[in-house]
């Protein structure tokens, strides 16, 4: 039982970066933007968070700096895809390559190539009084760093925003039929731009959580596909915040399983559990594709006549 509680707690912890980034992407996806540059944005968030924390001595200020820097890069993506109307895949790939090179360069310039990382303020475990004392449940749910609580609290808020608010309706509509939005006076460009910036906020925070919540330093290429996993979680979660949460937990659990298998030396290569998120996504796409909420205008730039 203790083993299980430990496993589930790890699953939640590992699910959080996917969930944070996914809650951002789900809005930009609904607005008709496929941002495969999320991987790069998270990488930028991870590095700038560490630098910010080192600079200010406070992990939250570090996270704030991570968000600001990431949003700036998201704005570059938004500028090219929404204003210049360039192909989203090309720009997103460009962002990933840029982020990969840039973070390596800046990291080496600031921290040196082979020195041990400096000590920085990180997200520490904050048990919730009383609740964390509940047997098993306390360990699973209530002994985590604050960003994990925030991520899960954000799910119902995001769900409400998407389906019950005016903003959510606009976001969902510009992804489905931007021209129809134009004819009722909605500014498609602004809506899409802002949706990308918001996904940048979440990607930046997700990146900062990876480098300062799961670890306490930046390593080159540390996101290691986390941005793509978040994109997959949005698709698997059928473009709803609630679905993203479930997908993140499934992916988090498969990651936790990988660590278990590594520790147990069962002989099963640890790469296999790593494949699980992708295999699940492919299978679920085959099964649910007909009922998919994928927006009709996905990845198509809106060009006004």
């Amino acid at each position, binding site marked *: 039982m203790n083993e299980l509680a430990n496993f589930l707690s790890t699953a939640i912890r590992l699910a959080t970066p996917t969930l944070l980034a996914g809650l951002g992407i789900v809005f930009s996806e609904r607005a008709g933007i496929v941002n495969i540059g999320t991987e790069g944005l998270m990488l930028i968030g991870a590095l700038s968070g560490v630098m910010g924390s080192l600079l200010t001595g406070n992990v939250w200020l570090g996270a704030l700096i991570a968000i600001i820097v990431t949003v700036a890069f998201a704005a570059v993506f938004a500028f090219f895809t929404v204003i210049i109307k360039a192909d989203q895949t090309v720009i997103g790939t460009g962002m990933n390559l840029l982020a990969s090179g840039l973070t390596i360069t800046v990291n080496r310039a600031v921290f040196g190539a082979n020195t041990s990382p400096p000590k920085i303020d990180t997200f520490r475990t904050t048990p919730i009084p009383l609740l964390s004392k509940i047997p098993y449940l306390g360990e699973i749910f209530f002994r985590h760093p604050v960003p994990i609580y925030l991520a899960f609290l954000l799910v119902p808020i995001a769900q409400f925003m998407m389906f019950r608010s*005016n903003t959510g*309706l606009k976001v969902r*509509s510009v992804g*489905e039929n931007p021209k*129809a939005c134009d004819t009722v006076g909605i500014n498609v460009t602004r809506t899409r731009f802002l949706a990308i910036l918001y996904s940048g906020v979440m990607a930046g925070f997700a990146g900062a959580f990876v480098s300062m919540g799961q670890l306490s330093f930046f390593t080159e290429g540390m996101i290691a596909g986390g941005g793509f996993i978040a994109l997959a979680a949005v698709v698997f979660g059928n473009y709803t915040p609630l679905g993203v949460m479930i997908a993140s937990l499934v992916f988090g659990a498969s990651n936790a399983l990988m660590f278990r298998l590594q520790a147990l030396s069962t002989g099963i290569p640890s790469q296999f559990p790593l494949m699980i998120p992708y295999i699940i996504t492919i299978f679920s796409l085959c099964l649910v594709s007909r009922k998919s*909420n994928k927006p*009709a205008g996905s990845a198509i730039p809106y060009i006004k006549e």
Partner: protein
Amino acid sequence: MASILEMKHITKRFGPVVANKDVSFSVEEGEVHALLGENGAGKSTLMNILFGLYEQTSGDIYYRGEPLNVRSPRDAIDRGIGMVHQHFMLIPAHSAIENVVLGYGGNKEVLDLKAAAKRFSEMADRYHMNIDPWEKVGKMSVGQQQRLEILKALYRDVDTLILDEPTAVLTPQEVEGLFDVIRQLIAEGKTVIFISHKLPEIMAICDRCTVLRQGEVAAAGLEVKSIKNLNELAHLMVGREVELVTAKTPSEPGEVILDVEDLNYINEKGIHVLKDVSFQVRAGEIVGVCGVDGNGQSELVKCLTGLLAPASGRVELLGKDVTHESAKNILDAGVGHIPEDRHKMGMVGAMNLRENIAMVDNYKEPYSTKGFMHWRWIDKHSRELVQKFSVKTPSIMEKAINLSGGNQQKMVVGRELSRETHLLIAVHPSRGLDIGATKYIQSQIVEARDRGAAVLMVSTELDEILEIPDRVLVIYGGRILACLEQAACSRNRLGLLMAGITEDDEEQPA
């Protein structure tokens, strides 16, 4: 009555193209004012300027005596101008009520859809429209979607409503319903601008009429009552005399060319789209398939041309079973296909005219030998074809996308008719074309018949169906509901059949 809208000396250029040239347009409060013109005459452009989707190059607009400066549709809506576009501006994935409140100025951040639905349903009742606010738009019929569009505009308290080609997708009965709504709007003191190129409708519902021709005003504010006959109006619209009826002799059907037996088709969603469809087309006759869009005609043609595989049944061409042949083999067996959407299926826009003309028979003589193209012969053939079918183009090296819709269609029709075909399948051959091009293409189809080809023509335009075919099949819900000789067709009878009402139903009213 005072004029509610004055558009003065509006000019709109798209690059070198002048879409509206010094157009002045004046509408009085409480009237139905028709904006008449052929496709490409600049009607929609003018209305899109009024509605804030385009900005005029020069000219002024006054609404209720005050200057109207619209930067976006929001401004137009705020001033009380609503528009129902030809291609509906609805989001199929959303519910009706979500579509209605989308972008509505009075929305709070937390949406109260229940209250909105209540207000919406009250309005719908007032106009005798039956629409469930919670139904997904994707599941609604075209007629329902149009009513939803009208309600969407009325929800915003507009007092001038622009209807862009509103009858293009409706059955005659639905058109009557639309006219009733228009009459009610007028009775409530609203103003309607009715864009159309269909003359009888304008005579039926409009008070006054402004005619646009090639971007210029050909006639302004004509009293419809003073118009003596349709030819007068047609002349204004086209700028020359047009024969409104295509000349045609009685048909002399020969041997059976196409024999379709118990054809069934089930689509990927498991919906039974075609149900036991059987019919024949003989040499030297034109068989029309008429029905509202989406009743299976598109699937029927695709089954006949090898683009879809039927679930059961037989298709015989000249006595040979071609049910599961590939599209290429079917075309090869002597079938010409003018597809429903020339942009998606009939041509490749980015390729030039001669390449498009060579596209179908490219692999055989005289187009090519063992994979080597005979461009010299193709050029000669293309030039002949362009001349014979009066395709207006600077040269055969022009990209197809740069031609007007009518000329693109002439190219496709020309290509298919110049092939040696026993069977011509023409789907919406005149869709989106002006009167001149329509009449030309129709006469070419009749000529193909007279040459001895069998013709299957699918159309949603009743005028076309009443005029061109020798026999008419009415398709409804994937079934052939009736097969009528042309003489037995009337607008009313076809209209009822298109709505799925057979004579048995009429005798026993539900």
